[in-house]
């Protein structure tokens, strides 16, 4: 099937099998390997991206469902060589170790802070419950989210 979509502002016109998962389109067709795969069953959140401004697990979206959509992946977050404030925060607060969950986690946090710019600790922990991290015990991720919120709010 022919589809066209925009990924990080670049348009792609491509012919895909109807069963192709969006995450495979991103990784194998567009070559954007920052979006990771940890389960393919919508549990781990490693594959989280933004579709039309809303977070989605790209392992559970067919590429054809993204026809006409605007997709943002982790590679689209840094602008002009500047890390996005959430990326900056993960670095600053040691919110990652192996880094495998990190791209999906950062996308999820962006979505969370869009909906709730001043989350409490509890809201943060519930807000990222769709994303698993096996390395950090989440504590520094929570710290990173709070720091992100401060930075983003200061930008407004």
């Amino acid at each position, binding site marked *: 099937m022919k589809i066209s979509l925009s990924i990080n502002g670049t348009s792609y016109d491509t012919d895909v099998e109807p069963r192709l998962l969006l995450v495979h389109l991103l990784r194998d067709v567009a070559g954007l*390997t920052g979006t990771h*795969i940890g389960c393919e069953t919508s549990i*781990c959140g490693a594959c989280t991206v933004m579709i039309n401004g809303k977070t989605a697990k790209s392992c559970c979206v067919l590429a054809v469902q993204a026809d006409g959509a605007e997709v943002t992946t982790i590679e689209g977050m840094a602008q002009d060589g500047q890390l996005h404030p959430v990326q900056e925060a993960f670095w600053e607060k040691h919110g990652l170790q192996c880094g495998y969950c990190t791209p999906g986690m950062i996308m999820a946090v962006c979505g969370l802070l869009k909906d709730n710019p001043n989350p409490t600790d509890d809201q943060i922990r519930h807000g990222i419950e769709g994303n698993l991290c096996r390395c950090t015990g989440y*504590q*520094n991720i929570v710290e990173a989210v709070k720091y992100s919120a401060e930075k983003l709010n200061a930008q407004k």
Partner: protein
Amino acid sequence: MSFLAKYIGQKVKRTEDPRLVKGIGHYVDDIKLADTLHVVILRSQYAHAKIVSINTDAAKTSPGVVAVYTGADVAGKVGFVPCAAALPGLNVPKYPVLADGKVAFVGQPIAAVVATDKYKARDAADLIEVDYDPLDVVTDAEASAQSDSPVIHEEFGTNVAFTHQAGTGDIDSAFAQADKIVKEKLNHQRLAPISMEPRGVLAHYLPGEEQMTLWSSTQIPHLMRTQVAIMLGMAENRLRVITPEVGGGFGCKLNVYSEEALLGWIAMQVHKPVKWIESRRENFQATIHGRAQVGTCEIAVKNDGTLLGLRYNVTADLGAYLQLLTPAIPTLTGLMLSGCYKIPAIQMNCVGVFTNKMSTDAYRGAGRPEATYLVERMMDCVALELKMDPVELRRKNMPKPSEFPFPTATGLFYDSGDYEKALDKALAMADYQKLRAEQAEARKQGRLIGIGVSTYVEICAMGPSIALPAGGWESATVRVEPTGKVTVLTGVSPHGQGEETAFAQIIGDMLGIDMNDVLVIHGDTSIVQYGIGTFGSRGLAVGGAALVKAAEKVVAKAKTLAAHLLQTDEASLTFENGKFVGAPNDKSVSIQEVALAAYIPHNVPEDFEPGLTATHFFEPKNFTFPSGTHICVSEVDRETGDVKILRYIAVDDCGNQINPMIVQGQIHGGIAQGMAQALFEEVVYDENGQLLTGELMDYAVPKAHQLPFFELDHTVTPTDVNPLGAKGVGEAGTIGSTPATANSVIDALAPFGVTHVDLPLRPEKLWKLMNN
């Protein structure tokens, strides 16, 4: 070495992170080679069966399929999956990379489909017909040791792989002299390590050059190179193993699996790059599991709380085959049965048995969490029996700092320790007496509050070579380049531990240079000298020690040249902030200038060997023994059995810290995993050997809202085993947190007369106990 330096001891942000937060690091599946073929593995659906026939005809003609291989194709061509652990009389079953007529666990590889894309490979795998003849299954470890059990490997006539006895001291007289003997049966449930990145392999063979490159998500690139080369009958120096970014390991990638050799062999057949990426389901079925011991512990104790002896009769569930270190894991349990206490007589009687399940092997802590959980759970049982405060019982039996190096009845010498210091600090943070008073008050109101303490010691920095099958040294090269930039080649293989940062900190301080001028390279056997790898909390304590030694050699050589350049006496030179300064007139030359002079040797001493590089292989004389105290406060919901962690306090002592931020991160992650063992996680097979927890949907890896905020502090008791004085911290959190959490929840249930519950402490189990 000084530890209040510019970088060492500071919370330096990690140099690894920019690429990782941007999503532009490369894990195995992110490496794309032109013309890569994709491999999908067909796995056994039965836990124990003869394979009567395999029909691959339809698969072979399926679109995009290049080849389909079964056990018959690789028999005699690819060696067996290796087990490196040697125990006297160990039964080692032959473990072919593709099943040869028989399968012994669900998930065992049977056939490999090679196709132009992964969807097509999966389609074709579905077309393979396997005719199984099911055999009787044994999944219970204790039943497997019985003579009426179905036998998994007929050649041995038994499911017992080994028996192992450990410990010294007069155990019989210890029990004869005891005022009380406290006995409990404990189950250490099977766990799945679950690195968020599953395993993966990419293999590329160049027939002209007769060289192969194997990218693998592993913790041990060099050991893998040796083992895979042997399996493939290939010269080791023609195989290059590259470990790119690795998305977590926790021990499960401290192994050599079927797929690594299989992919290598397939690459040699098809002469194109071949890639296999493990699915999460495969990861549950065919990546090693951890723990899985069931045993009875008896403690001999005096009425005043003095410990006299400990006996542990245990059955270790090994799974169907032996992976790299499978039989070694329970032996580590045996070494650590003294905990942080003086116990004059200790005996472990261990039987390792085969079951129709995936192999067990090293999972974060690897044998030590079992020991610590056992000892710390028993301490609470003893305290209850003696009506002593569990803290005072522990304190009474701890060795004093002056008693180190402390010899244990398990044959170890603990290097250094101040156990009471950490205990007191944790008690103060928790305000223990007040907590106990609050608990009593809460109980009156019907609230179920529990307080759990665990004081632990662990064995780290693996370790002296004599104690490890492949040697326990580590290597480092420090290469000062002509421009003064420094390249470090390390034999360790970090996968989240941040050693690129920690090692750059060390070199930055030792050579007096900007740490951003240091590049740390690891995980490429063609670039880095032979190394052992990252596991057993050894990266810094052994690998970092090798680095210090190599850097010292570089500085020594540079000093000789500096003295020549400054036309002064070497003995009069000092080296500070990257500069050699000479007496009497304070002339100086920088290490960068010396490096250039060493590579362009126009003005050097006679017989000076050009270049400025040094390698060191560091052999530790002992293990290190980090320790600490964890305190967990929990509340059990009387209505639902839900556990809420109210506070979690951890005071850990890993010796000197190079980067406290990284240390804390390691402890956070470790506590999370240990607490998850206490509360949530368990690999479950049914009686037919079917894996019931085969996806993340069924296996409870904790989410953020299920874990508490961790309150951390530390004490510092350096070790003299290595020049950094660092003990290692990768596993500490996991080891301390399982017993602290379990003790807390079981303490909460004390009003119901509960003295022990096996893990995991899920609501359903607790609800039943309260409503029985």
